[in-house]
């Protein structure tokens, strides 16, 4: 559009382009098979001399399965302004997906209680912004800055499969009609027992109880927290250059999601898992329930009284154990210095020498205090994965 003659007169606009697209996309998911599947197995029997090898039917033929489809609309603008000092690009997209494959409960008469079928629908929309520019460019100094941000939201508009309480409250979140993909729900915490410090909840039948049946598909008493995946994600990179010295600061952020805190509560602890500092705030004696919501460490008698009722597992999946997933992080800072080129030329054989000091994952500037040291980017790893390690590196680059 910048080539159109009505833009001839202005001096600040270098380029303007508008993009748009609309299309039908189809994809074949790898998770579903349309042919019959047989697997080999060894039968489960008490003694080894009774076992025999068998073949079992793992999935029936499913000739109705077809492509997952989506209508995708996209509108974008690209701008280059002020003598190419500022680049701006913006895209807005809508995606209406249909015939998505999801599991569905059948009558079971064919021999498979849940099957895959093309029946789920979902709507997504979002935008992406990228701005980059050079706000300051003088003789020995320049500042270059790049900002990118993405926003997306989703809503499952049709899904018949009924998830149970555990499916929706675990850290990965679950999928249920009317809510975003990977929505996190919580069991509603009610109070601590004034005599034992054992937590009570609104259970699967809407009553106050220390026992919640995780397999129940009655999920209306759960509280919707938010989706697990952030709606906003982005980064801001700044490069300052003064003569041969260059400094890069890169910040990342995300927001508008909730994450499940680590499942630290149990009915009994060992030397390996009793270290959470959350326990410092726990219920210790009668009356504490007015000041704290952290349950007690149970004694042997109460442990046997709650056996089979798992209130501490429920507590791990309750409204008390979620935190906001939003954060602002100093991802990397790097400082580098290149030797001046006239010095290199004198040496006769060096073409470039650069010293670099770089640090990554340095600080979490803004994050929910409830996280208590837990990394908001690593919420669903289950306790075996290491969080992002803080790294500091020094490097010398020599080119001949």
């Amino acid at each position, binding site marked *: 559009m910048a080539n159109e003659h009505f833009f001839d007169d202005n001096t600040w606009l270098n380029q303007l382009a508008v993009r748009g697209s609309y299309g039908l996309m189809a994809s074949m998911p790898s998770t579903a098979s349309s042919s019959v599947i047989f697997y080999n197995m060894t039968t489960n029997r008490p003694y080894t001399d009774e076992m025999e090898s*068998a073949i079992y039917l793992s999935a029936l033929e499913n000739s109705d399965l077809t492509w997952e489809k989506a209508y995708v609309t996209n509108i974008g603008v690209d701008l280059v302004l002020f003598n190419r000092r500022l680049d701006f690009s913006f895209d807005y997209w809508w995606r209406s997906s249909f015939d998505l494959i999801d599991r569905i409960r*059948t009558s079971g008469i064919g*021999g498979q209680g849940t099957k895959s079928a093309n029946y789920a629908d979902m709507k997504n929309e979002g935008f992406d912004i990228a701005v980059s520019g050079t706000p300051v460019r003088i003789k020995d100094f320049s500042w270059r800055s790049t900002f990118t941000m993405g926003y997306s939201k989703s809503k499952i508009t049709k899904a018949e499969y009924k998830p149970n309480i555990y499916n929706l409250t675990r850290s990965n979140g679950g999928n249920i009609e009317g809510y975003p993909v990977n929505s996190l729900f919580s069991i509603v915490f009610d109070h601590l027992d004034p005599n034992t410090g054992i937590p009570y909840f609104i259970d699967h039948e809407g009553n106050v109880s220390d026992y919640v049946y995780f397999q129940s598909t009655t999920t209306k008493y759960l509280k919707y927290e938010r989706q697990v995946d952030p709606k906003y994600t982005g980064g801001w990179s700044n490069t300052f250059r003064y003569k041969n010295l260059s400094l890069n600061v890169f910040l990342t952020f995300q927001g508008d999601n909730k994450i499940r805190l680590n499942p630290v509560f149990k009915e009994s602890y060992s030397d390996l898992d009793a270290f959470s500092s959350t326990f410092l705030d726990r219920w210790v004696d009668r009356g504490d329930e007015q000041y704290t919501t952290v349950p007690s460490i149970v004694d042997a008698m109460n442990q046997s009284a709650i056996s*089979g009722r798992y209130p501490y597992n429920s507590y791990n999946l309750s409204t008390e154990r979620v935190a906001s997933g939003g954060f602002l992080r100093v991802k990397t800072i790097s400082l580098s210095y290149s030797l001046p080129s006239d010095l290199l030329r004198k040496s006769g054989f060096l073409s470039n020498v650069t010293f670099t000091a770089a640090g990554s994952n340095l600080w979490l500037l803004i994050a929910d205090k409830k996280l208590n040291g837990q990394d908001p980017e690593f919420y669903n790893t289950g306790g075996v994965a290491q969080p992002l390690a803080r790294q500091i590196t020094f490097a010398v680059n020599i080119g001949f």
Partner: protein
Amino acid sequence: MKKIYLYSLIFPVVLLASCNNFLDEVPDNRTEIKDVETLAKLVTSSYPKSTYASLFNPRIDNVSDKGNGYSTYTHNTNSFYWRDVTETSQDSPTYLWNACYEAIANSNHAIQAAEKINDDEKIPFVAEAKITRAFSHFILTATFSQLYEPGTANSSPGIPYVREVEDVVFKKYDRRTVQATWDDIEKDLLEGIKDLGIDSKYSVPSYHFTQAATNAFATRFYLYKGEYDEVIKYASKVIPVPGVLVDVSETSVPVYNVSESDGANLWARNNFQP
């Protein structure tokens, strides 16, 4: 120029003609049922992997008070009060229903696959598949529909008798009547018994429908159906020489034969001999 058209027509025809055999090969090492060995393995999976005992025990007088604080499984409570069980996990009605129909699907796949196997050794395994199919349907109809009443029309709804492999997401099934369901079970059972063959064809006979197990199932079937001549006929095949009693009342000690001179044994020998 014309030749180019001709060649461009001939070329794909030649090329595609040779593709046919190639495309018929499966691209991976998937398990297929194509000989008697794989057929026998598939039939091994055609036994329902669920029990109905835990379902019925709380509904009859086989319950006892286990004390407070162990009410984790509400199906026990619901069954005890004869309420609907909403759970779908193990020991629930839904689980039994799905497990039986899963077993039936295994039987049906075996019977379907056997049609393409040209080997007479398949006959006893097809017979086993028919008996397991009859057995699973028998468990289902005894659990989920009215029991068979001899001398009545038995017109209340039965359960769908599945003989075909399902290949679509939702297939319509008809429950028909109890009478029709029991007729189908009887048909499969009799066809199976005829061809069952010797027990040594199984690698582990005690986990399969052996001659004795099949006849015991037939005995049970006709006992439920009220055809007592058939009951005696099949029961005699299970225990050819009656009069040997086995004490199973004390579960803590191994099952042993009751002494020959035991009063009950003497009575049985005098009264049950043919």
